[in-house]
């Protein structure tokens, strides 16, 4: 239990640091907003997926072992993101603003950071799980819910370039990540 709390605390602090870096491009209150939302995103997604993960793993892992492994993967991802936060913060406060290239550069840097941390922790997770199917199922469920959670908690960087919204639920509750992605894809094909 103590170990689980320690991991959750690491995940919360490290992901808050990464969130602060995400918000650094717009600056001001956006740093605080993103720092609050990032732990909510990582740990909230984990909490929502816990039931499905426990049931899928029940035949091969005990509930405590499954939760410990899941929390370990989340805290490892958060720790890596937290470790990348200082250079990203510097990038955020020094990239030209307002400038389309600056905003895009920030998006690319953050995507690369998330991709790097995600790939490493997912590769480590494979060693912890007894079967590849369980590993794929965990990743699929966490990814599926995580995408919608990120959509619900947006804006992250702040495309209006102003720290004007913490959590615009009335806007975010219209549609969802998958509908938006589908719309974007069909829009590309039609053009």
């Amino acid at each position, binding site marked *: 239990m103590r170990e689980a709390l320690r991991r959750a605390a690491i995940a919360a602090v490290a992901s808050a640091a990464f969130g602060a870096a995400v918000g650094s491009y717009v600056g001001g209150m956006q740093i605080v907003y993103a720092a609050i939302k990032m732990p909510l995103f990582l740990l909230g997604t984990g909490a*929502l997926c816990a*039931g499905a993960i426990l049931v899928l793993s029940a035949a091969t892992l005990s509930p405590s072992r499954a939760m410990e492994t899941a929390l370990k993967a989340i805290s490892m991802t958060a720790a890596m993101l937290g470790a990348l936060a200082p250079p990203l913060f510097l990038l955020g406060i020094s990239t030209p603003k307002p400038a389309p290239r600056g905003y895009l550069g920030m998006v690319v840097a953050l995507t690369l950071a998330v991709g790097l941390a995600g790939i490493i922790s997912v590769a480590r997770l494979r060693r912890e799980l007894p079967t590849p199917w369980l590993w794929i199922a965990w990743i699929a469920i966490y990814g599926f819910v995580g995408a919608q*959670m990120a959509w619900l908690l947006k804006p992250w960087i702040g495309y209006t370039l102003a720290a004007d919204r913490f959590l615009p639920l009335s806007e975010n509750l219209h549609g969802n990540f998958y509908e938006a992605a589908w719309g974007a894809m069909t829009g590309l094909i039609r053009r």
Partner: protein
Amino acid sequence: MVDSIGAGRVVRIAEDEVFTRLDNQESASGPVRLAGALLRGPGGVLRDISLSHGLLHHAASLFALTAAFAGAYGAVIGLHQPGLQTLYAALKVPIVVLGSALLCTPTLFVFNAVGGSRLTLSQILCLVLAMSAAISLMLVAFAPIAWFFGVSTNGIGFLTFLHVGVFVIAAGFGLRMMDLARRYLRHLDGTEAIGPILLLFWCGLVVVVGLQMAHYVRPIMTPGPFFTGERGLFLEVLVPAHLR
């Protein structure tokens, strides 16, 4: 040839490991313990079914478990239209899960008996209820995720797709458990308890009956009366109107 013999041996060794694990699992009684047993490995429950021990007790527990968990998932579906519709959906989903499984039970029993199996109707009923309990367990495991998408999404099209996806996963889990039960009972008895082809055919039948039952008790997500009484085939939903 050598490779195929080697592959066959690997499959046998893997199956022996599964059976050894199932042999070491204890029986469980009561809905909550049964839920845990179904998740970790239903060895004890399957041995009870094979020996006809406490079948009535197991059947009642599995029925209660299915009704409660499928009802909980139904309530999550119904939350899209809060109020009376939530209650209706909480009642309709157990009807679909239990109804389709129980409607197909006589088919499995009769065809299995014709094929030479010695399983009684009570044993078959317990196996079918164990399958429906496994389905409802998986449904309730995905309930927080379905709830999250339900409160954060407006589009009914996406939610329908999501719920169908969850039902497909749950049905796959339940049918896989049924296949495990078939193999384990064969291991215990030394004779074929349920024929593999019959089980495949029966699984297809359960899926079709489940789809038709869900269509018959519609609407589940959208507002409407508890039962419209409208007739129609579930295929009508799948085939566009201009192609019919």
